[in-house]
């Protein structure tokens, strides 16, 4: 039966939000930026420029100027393979919060700025751009708490909220101005809204709006009806009557309207552009992913990938509790039916356990069912994590109930829940702390940590994000104007490091591939199995196999830097 949440629950939910936000914000300060973030940093400024122009045109009583095809294409043409919502939010956050030095950084922004922006000046640029992701994931933790607390108990909610965020790979993405953590948060929000809408009328339209926002975040959201539909049918079977169909009606109407509203690129030539968008993702280029020693870059991809990766990257205690929670949920459901086989319709059910269970599995199963490429390690199925965390929360809830049953002294009942909650959350917190800031190299206790992951031949990392770790060395070792081969780090990432005063502006980027290596005096290789050839190029062109610097995570090399020997 669903608990009615109290003011104390809302306060706890607020506390969960604040703690998660602070942790993510603090982590982001030392988190290197990634290749895709580089593109989204640029997109954020470009998209914001559209809204800035809209405000100015409206002030001049000429708002229609902002709704021409040319204006839309100028604002949203860049990076239109992904919807615009998150990039617009990154841009808005940047515009409001960043400490502006823009006119002093010509060529480092996608646009030229003659004057400083008037802003609140509270955050540096990168932190301002990343803030929307931080906020969304903190909101996700809050919703996980509310769902767990309402369905089962506060202990369940708190444990689930903590384990949802204290998951190394999700925590990594939750610091970035990218879409993978936001879509996980949106997925949770849609499921939460749908769950409430099963009994509460006003959550029907909210579910529609949130679904639209989810679609406008990333295409993963298109799969949500496929999860919610079967659950809705199950609830109908249990209740012996149809639950409200409202959420689906609003998702199909209001959701689509919100989606289109958030993505001006689709306002012109809608069908053609939407087709192009779908085609881009259906026919996505195959990137490289090392998995148990083999580099995959074309089909067939291993079907075990999402499950094995989850098993080797989530904290083991979280995994064990999730498995225990699943077993307990099924057992409890069977026991309830056995104890009362002739019961009339269970009108109060929302089949919460089933909803959580299928959402724990489905984001991973999408890869299995669609045979999708496996690049991106775990980031494409992050939405599983909050639901696995909820299963773990249920396990804690049931253990606490069983251990403090009837005869147990009151004092034991009081300390048991917090003690168990702290104990089971400790490994997740410790693992997340340990993995920072190189979480894509991190593997769990089962794998043997980063070194164990390397022994198993698992993907070392991707996205060229650990470059931040070599910048202090480069700052002291590179001569003025040194030509540097940056390998997988793109120019937009470097621009941000210069804007943040983390990289000397005189250092030159020699460009891509062989000409870039040949033209450099300092070159790096960011280790992934398929990138080995770049290291061999450096050996050939520099005439040495002796690195000047090896950046490692617990002894596992992640970036190796070479200097051309002086003659």
């Amino acid at each position, binding site marked *: 039966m669903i608990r009615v949440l109290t003011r104390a629950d809302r306060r706890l939910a607020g506390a969960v939000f604040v703690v998660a936000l602070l942790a993510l914000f603090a982590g982001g300060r030392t988190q290197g930026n990634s290749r895709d973030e580089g593109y989204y940093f640029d997109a954020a400024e470009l998209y914001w420029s559209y809204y800035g122009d809209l405000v100015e045109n409206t002030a001049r009583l000429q708002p229609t100027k902002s709704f021409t095809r040319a204006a839309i294409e100028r604002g949203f043409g860049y990076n239109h393979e992904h919807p615009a919502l998150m990039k617009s939010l990154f841009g808005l956050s940047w515009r409001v919060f960043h400490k502006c030095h823009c006119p002093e950084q010509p060529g480092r922004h996608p646009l030229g700025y003659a004057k400083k922006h008037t802003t609140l000046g509270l955050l540096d640029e990168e932190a301002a751009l990343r803030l929307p992701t931080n906020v969304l994931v903190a909101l996700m933790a809050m919703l996980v708490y509310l769902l767990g607390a309402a369905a089962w108990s506060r202990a369940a909610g708190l444990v689930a909220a903590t384990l949802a965020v204290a998951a190394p790979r999700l925590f990594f993405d939750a610091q970035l101005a990218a879409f993978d953590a936001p879509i996980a948060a949106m997925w949770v929000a849609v499921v939460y809204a749908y769950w409430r809408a099963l009994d509460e009328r006003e959550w029907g339209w909210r579910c529609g709006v949130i679904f639209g926002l989810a679609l406008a975040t990333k295409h993963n959201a298109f799969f949500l009806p496929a999860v919610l539909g079967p659950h809705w049918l199950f609830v109908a079977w249990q209740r012996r009557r149809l639950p409200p169909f409202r959420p689906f009606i609003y998702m199909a109407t209001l959701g689509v309207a919100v989606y289109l509203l958030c993505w001006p690129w689709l306002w012109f030539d809608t069908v053609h552009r939407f087709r192009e968008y779908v085609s881009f993702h259906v026919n996505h280029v195959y990137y490289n992913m090392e998995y148990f020693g083999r580099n995959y870059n074309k089909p067939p991809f291993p079907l075990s990938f999402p499950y094995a990766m989850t098993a080797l990257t989530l904290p083991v205690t979280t995994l064990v509790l999730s498995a225990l929670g699943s077993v307990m949920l099924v057992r409890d459901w069977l026991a309830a039916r056995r104890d009362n086989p002739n019961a009339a319709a269970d009108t109060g059910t929302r089949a919460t356990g089933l909803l959580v269970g299928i959402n724990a599995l489905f984001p991973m199963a999408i890869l299995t069912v669609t045979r999708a490429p496996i690049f991106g390690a775990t980031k494409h199925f992050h939405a599983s994590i909050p639901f696995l965390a909820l299963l773990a929360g249920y396990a804690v809830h049931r*253990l606490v109930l069983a251990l403090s*049953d009837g005869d147990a002294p009151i004092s034991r009942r009081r300390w048991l829940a917090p003690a168990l909650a702290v104990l089971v959350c400790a*490994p997740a917190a410790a693992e997340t702390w*340990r993995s920072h800031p190189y979480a894509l190299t991190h593997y769990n206790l089962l794998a043997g940590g980063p070194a164990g992951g390397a022994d198993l031949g698992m993907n070392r990392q991707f996205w060229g994000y650990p470059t931040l770790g070599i910048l202090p060395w480069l700052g002291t070792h590179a001569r003025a104007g040194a030509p540097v081969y940056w390998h997988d780090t793109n120019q937009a990432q470097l621009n941000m490091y210069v804007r943040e005063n983390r990289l000397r502006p005189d250092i030159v980027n020699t460009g891509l591939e062989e000409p870039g290596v040949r033209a450099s005096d300092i070159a790096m290789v960011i280790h992934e199995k398929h990138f*080995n*050839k770049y290291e061999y190029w450096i050996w050939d062109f520099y005439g*040495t*196999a002796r690195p000047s610097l*090896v950046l490692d995570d617990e002894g*596992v090399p992640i970036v190796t830097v070479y200097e051309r020997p002086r003659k």
Partner: protein
Amino acid sequence: MKERASKFAVAAAALVALLALVETAVALTAGARVAPASDWDAAAAEVRAGFGPGDLIAFAPAWADQVGRAHLGDLVTVEMAGRSDADRYARVWEVSIRGSHAPEVAGARLVKESRHGRVRVALYEKPAAHVVWDFTAHADEARVTQTPGTSPPTGGNETPCYADPGPSWRCPGSRLERRTLEIDYRPRRGILAPAESARATHLAFTEVPLGARLVVYAGIHDYYARKNGSGLVDLALVVDGKELLAARVANSDGWKRYEIDTRALAGGRHTVRFDLGATDPAWRNLGFHAEARQ
């Protein structure tokens, strides 16, 4: 029933608590289990003190290679790092962590070993192959030509490829070079010879001393070529006009070893030619290395 459930709950809670404590402790102490730079420095000092010409240094596990070379890279030449095998080395210094062993020491005799904190140094000895002629090392002595289709060079039908320092050769549609190749994601020192459309490429070496056998390695260079192309590359080895090897090299071959008995030719000087071509030459970056061994 209730008692049984309670016992289950106590057992489950105890196991979860134990797991949580172990996982937390392992996470918090992970840094202490990593070999510090001082251990690597001490190990490197020992290797450097005993290292002699013709010795090999191998790091284990393979992923620790960069860390090892950061400490001993002055002794690990590009040729050593890109070796095809360890056959020519009589002594192998194995520098390892985490109890790993380099494949190069399999079957070798352990002479001595020592520990420097978390880094182990071991010296192994084994019989070494005597290399009479290394075609990659002597690549600058090759004459490179092309002929139409699959026809063998007859003198009149050859188009010469022009040599550049490096060494490398500019052919009409490709460039041959001595390089450190990426074959099966590992470094292999050899000659990069991309296949061309409707032309066969020939590398001829004259006055080559031969021993008891010729050892040839071949494979497709570059993961991107292996991803985008799938055709076979024909590789032939011709000694004094007689074909001794005809191989078809595929993506899946890795760095494939071929061994040819040349005892009948040992002692004298010979003309050795490598012919290569492909009917589907797209992305066919053949890489090969060969040695005449005693």
